[in-house]
């Protein structure tokens, strides 16, 4: 048996290698050295081709051949590979404006269950705050829906908002909303590329059931010190980047955002609401920093930092009759994340990435009161807090076993600490014991990419997940299988199946104003969520990849979903949370998604349509009958058209149309005792509504038209600048946000008072909203660069450096 295995390994690993050599490396921007994610790299013979991953890295094997590399917006280049052995490559591409663009002719199209969005594609979409927003842009994609209007909560293929994993450079971020969901925490200034996996997750991803949002941050531009400043209606942001050393081995990128609404809001609440006894202010900030060190071509180290918080506070006004009294309330919530990453190219067949990270999410509310004249007993402080901490190590190894077989193996180990509900009351006779749940998550995975001839690609993978908490251990094998068939160049059919588990449950607790995210770990009696998904689709390119079509259908089943029992709403209610959960939830979702894109030419744009159904069943909710998922919209449609006008203007029109959200309808009225009595001692009876099945009715169709224009120009000092104008909801459609049964319209005074019949009114919040923002780029090393020798023209002749071949 051992001899057989040895022979098998020799056959598999060595035999193919004897005939062909391995080619691997990075594709980067020739000037900034920023990695290009999703660049197509293939052999001109058409035998093999790959796309770069989110490190800009690729691996392939070929015989003597010509390498072709393409990337949207960059000139497609062909590089004859010199004869020789295994080759490590640094491919440097220049933007298409500098060199004549070549036509792209080959490589396998991306899968239909992956959405890729670049910072450039996002930049021109009209946005509510005047500045692009990552999650709002993703909500336009087929299969991804938002919650209520304006919210950054994201639902992928009928899943819950807590079933999405947001990875910032492969490190999970727990909380992704600013301003209660009006904006996401991802500063568009630092985004290189966004991949969203709606299903068929690669085995390296796990821990969330429905969606993986993989955001790759840019690295600092090593060509010079640069930056940008932008200001919109809600916030301003500042970005700096550049090399940290003369040899360009070190680079930095720092960006920060801050609202300027605090003072305005405090003034408004103090002046406009003079009768109010307190002043209120809200704001947020976030900071991203990244330092990258590349000691040589084989190694890359980076240190990432993210910190962002929202804060809402009220302060008691001074009272004449009680000058010694002071009081305040405060809420603060947000993430802190720090991570270190080391990438190493061992050889042309082996690449490794190791990440050590720490992430913390916490939400904290507090109340303070002091009466200087009342003594110590008159001072009080109450605190409510919920937090999650995650210390993780991830290791991934990419290995090219043969021309037709590449694999990735890896592992993950996480130590998590959940404190879903901490309460402190300074004047309480005794403090509540802290409930901290500590757990460990571990996973090993094995991804395979096996090319079966020229037309088939098989990707069998497995992820083995383990989860240990204080009272239980769960393990779950998660097999995943994908088969792609490419009968013609530019067309791929995919069939996929996957299972995945999730060890943390997201619940929403009422706060001062917004609903707060509370994470609760799986326990013996609250088992991990599980999901299985089947999907199949077709991706096709037409007219030299000018047009693309993605069509996909899916079926997903989710188990062990949780919901808060009736009567538990606030953080203070959630002690002993395990007792307050419905834990037997089952979810079912299915649908069809269509995406049409035009990515070249002066007219570009996309059209997306999704039909989806999503149901939930809990034994103690809705009488045990299945009900529509709270945020499901069976039909959603979006069309975006972008037109470049000359050198300066870029126009965009976006029309969104979707089914209304479901609501629970009232079906009748009854008399019930009010709890009070009249003068004759008889109970006072009052009318109340009787409701029908949960979420069995639907609000009217939602639609709106947004238009945007970006004016790109040079300032008198030569800096590039942009004005962005956008109008949200151009035709002032009053879309239903919610509804209420009322006997008269609260907006109208002339309604007959005696009419007591009930009518259903929709409540709308978002009228036409014009916004604008201004952004200026600056290059504070430009003056110095004027004296530097002119950059040499790209050469067809490859240069060798430290054993690496530079193709430029």
């Amino acid at each position, binding site marked *: 048996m051992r001899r057989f295995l040895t022979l098998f390994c020799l056959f598999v690993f060595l035999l193919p290698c004897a005939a062909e050599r391995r080619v691997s490396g990075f594709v980067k921007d020739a000037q900034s050295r920023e990695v290009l994610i999703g660049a197509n790299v293939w052999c001109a013979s058409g035998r093999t081709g790959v796309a770069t991953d989110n490190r800009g890295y690729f691996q392939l094997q070929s015989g003597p051949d010509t390498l072709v590399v393409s990337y949207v917006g960059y000139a497609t280049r062909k590089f004859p590979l010199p004869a020789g052995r295994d080759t490590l490559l640094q491919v440097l591409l220049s933007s298409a404006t500098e060199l004549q663009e070549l036509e792209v002719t080959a490589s396998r199209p991306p899968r239909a269950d992956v959405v890729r969005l670049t910072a450039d594609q996002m930049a021109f979409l009209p946005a509510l705050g005047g500045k692009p927003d990552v999650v709002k842009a993703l909500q336009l994609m087929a299969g991804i829906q938002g919650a209520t209007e304006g919210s950054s909560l994201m639902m992928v293929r009928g899943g819950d908002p807590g079933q999405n994993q947001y990875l910032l450079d492969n490190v999970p971020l727990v909380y992704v909303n600013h301003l209660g969901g009006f904006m996401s925490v991802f500063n568009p200034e630092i985004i290189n590329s966004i991949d969203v996996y709606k299903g068929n997750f690669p085995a390296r991803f796990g821990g969330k059931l429905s969606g993986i949002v993989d955001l790759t941050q840019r690295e600092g531009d090593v060509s010079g010190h640069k930056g940008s400043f932008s200001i919109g209606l809600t916030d301003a942001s500042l970005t700096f980047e550049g090399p940290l050393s003369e040899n360009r081995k070190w680079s930095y990128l720092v960006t920060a955002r801050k609202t300027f609404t605090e003072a305005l809001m405090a003034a408004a609440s103090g002046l406009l609401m003079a009768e109010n006894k307190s002043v209120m202010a809200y704001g947020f900030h976030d900071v991203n920093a990244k330092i990258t060190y590349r000691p040589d071509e084989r190694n890359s180290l980076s240190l990432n930092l993210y910190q962002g918080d929202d804060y809402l506070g009220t302060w008691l006004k001074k009272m004449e009759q009680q000058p010694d009294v002071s009081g305040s*309330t405060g809420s603060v919530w947000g993430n802190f994340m720090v991570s270190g990453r080391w990438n190493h190219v061992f050889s042309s067949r082996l690449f490794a990435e190791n990440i050590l990270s720490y992430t913390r999410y916490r939400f904290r509310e507090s109340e303070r009161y002091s009466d200087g004249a009342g003594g110590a007993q008159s001072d009080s402080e109450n605190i409510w807090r919920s937090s999650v901490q995650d210390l993780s190590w991830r290791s991934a190894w990419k290995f090219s076993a043969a021309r037709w077989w590449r694999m990735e193996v890896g592992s993950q180990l996480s130590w998590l600490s959940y404190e879903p509900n901490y309460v402190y009351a300074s004047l309480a006779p005794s403090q509540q014991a802290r409930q901290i749940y500590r757990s460990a998550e571990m996973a090993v995975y094995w991804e395979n990419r096996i090319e079966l001839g020229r037309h088939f690609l098989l990707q069998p993978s497995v992820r083995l997940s383990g989860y240990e908490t204080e009272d239980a251990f769960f393990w779950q094998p998660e097999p995943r299988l994908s088969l792609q068939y490419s009968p013609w160049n530019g067309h791929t059919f995919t069939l996929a199946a996957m299972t995945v588990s999730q060890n943390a449950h997201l619940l929403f607790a009422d706060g001062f104003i917004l609903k707060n995210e509370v994470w609760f770990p799986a326990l013996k009696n609250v088992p991990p969520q599980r999901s299985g998904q089947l999907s199949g689709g077709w991706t096709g390119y037409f007219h030299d990849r000018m047009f693309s079509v993605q069509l996909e259908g899916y079926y997903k089943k989710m188990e062990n979903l949780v919901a808060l029992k009736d009567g538990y709403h606030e953080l*203070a209610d959630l002690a002993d949370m395990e007792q307050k959960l419905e834990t037997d939830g089952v979810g079912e979702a299915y649908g069809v998604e269509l995406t049409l894109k035009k990515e070249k030419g002066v007219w570009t744009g996309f059209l997306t349509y999704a039909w989806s159904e999503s149901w939930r069943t809990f034994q103690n909710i809705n009488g045990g009958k299945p009900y529509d998922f709270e945020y499901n919209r069976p039909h959603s449609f979006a069309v975006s058209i972008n037109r470049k006008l000359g050198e300066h203007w870029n126009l965009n029109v976006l029309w969104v149309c979707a089914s209304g959200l479901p609501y629970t309808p009232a079906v009748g009225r009854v008399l019930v005792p009010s709890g009070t009595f009249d003068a004759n001692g008889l109970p006072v009876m009052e009318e109340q509504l009787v409701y029908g099945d949960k979420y069995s009715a639907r609000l009217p169709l939602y639609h709106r038209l947004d238009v945007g224009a970006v004016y790109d120009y040079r300032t008198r000092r030569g800096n590039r600048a942009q004005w962005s104008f956008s109008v949200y909801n151009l035709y002032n459609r009053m879309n239903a946000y919610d509804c209420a049964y009322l006997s008269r319209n609260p907006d109208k005074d002339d309604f007959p008072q005696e009419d007591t019949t009930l009518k*259903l009114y929709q409540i709308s919040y978002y009228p036409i909203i014009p916004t604008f923002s201004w952004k200026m780029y600056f290059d504070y090393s430009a003056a110095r660069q004027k004296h530097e020798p002119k950059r040499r023209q790209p050469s067809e002749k490859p240069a060798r450096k430290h054993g690496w071949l530079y193709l430029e």
Partner: protein
Amino acid sequence: MDNKRAGKLAVFALLSVVFTSCYKLLETDFPDYEPSLVLNAMLRPGDALRVHVSRSANLGDSAVLPVNDAVVRINDTVLPPVGDGWYASSDSVRAGSTYVCTVEASGFPAITRSATVPYAPEIVSLSVLPELSVSASGEMNRRYNLTFRNDTSRLCYYHFVLADYVEDYRPATGPASSMSVSEAVIDPNSNVVFRNEPEPLSVFSNVNMDSDVFTLQWSVPTQMRSLADTVFVNCSACLELQSVSAEYYRHLKRAAAGYYDKNGIFAAYASTCYVLGEQK
């Protein structure tokens, strides 16, 4: 956490300036709802035995109509109609008794409900605590302790009610004239009794009470002057501790979430009140 509700109101008021809300008529024709018989009763010791019968209405109807031609029996006693949907007998409700009520009306299936009338709880003391707390809208809360006797031998349900305006008070049955009722603010972490109790916390059971005497800590905004000043000062307000039947307990919990039984509520309770600083 009532402070937070006040905060929400203030912030929503501010947001309404920025995003002006708009109401628009959506629906006036609703599908017909099959009407059902609705039986309501609030049985209190000392009160006359009486129930109210009505029929449920469609959303578009102008009013919910009482039913005056039903046959109502309680424990084999037929209650005659007294008008406007009320049926009453001269018998008084007695604490500790179980009442089974059956209602028959033409065109509807008969409905039967039962309730056992609890005994009134005994209030031991009421005291005010010196400290104040502040809410998000700047209102201050005054804290109180209410101590009452608890029967640990059986499952009991309580409802704590604040009434800040009472025109008439009857010692036998509690507040009897028009009044407005408020929920007391109870911190769920103040006692293990409330830690697993769904909202509203003013309705609670004695499942986790292990003592014959229980002290309920609650607070009320000082802006509610009539109560805050009146627990010990001569003013027209009172607090009421009710011992309620199991069905009434469930009804109060569901009603707080806006859900009501389509067949009404057959409730029983007995209460003890504090008015003007003295126990009644």
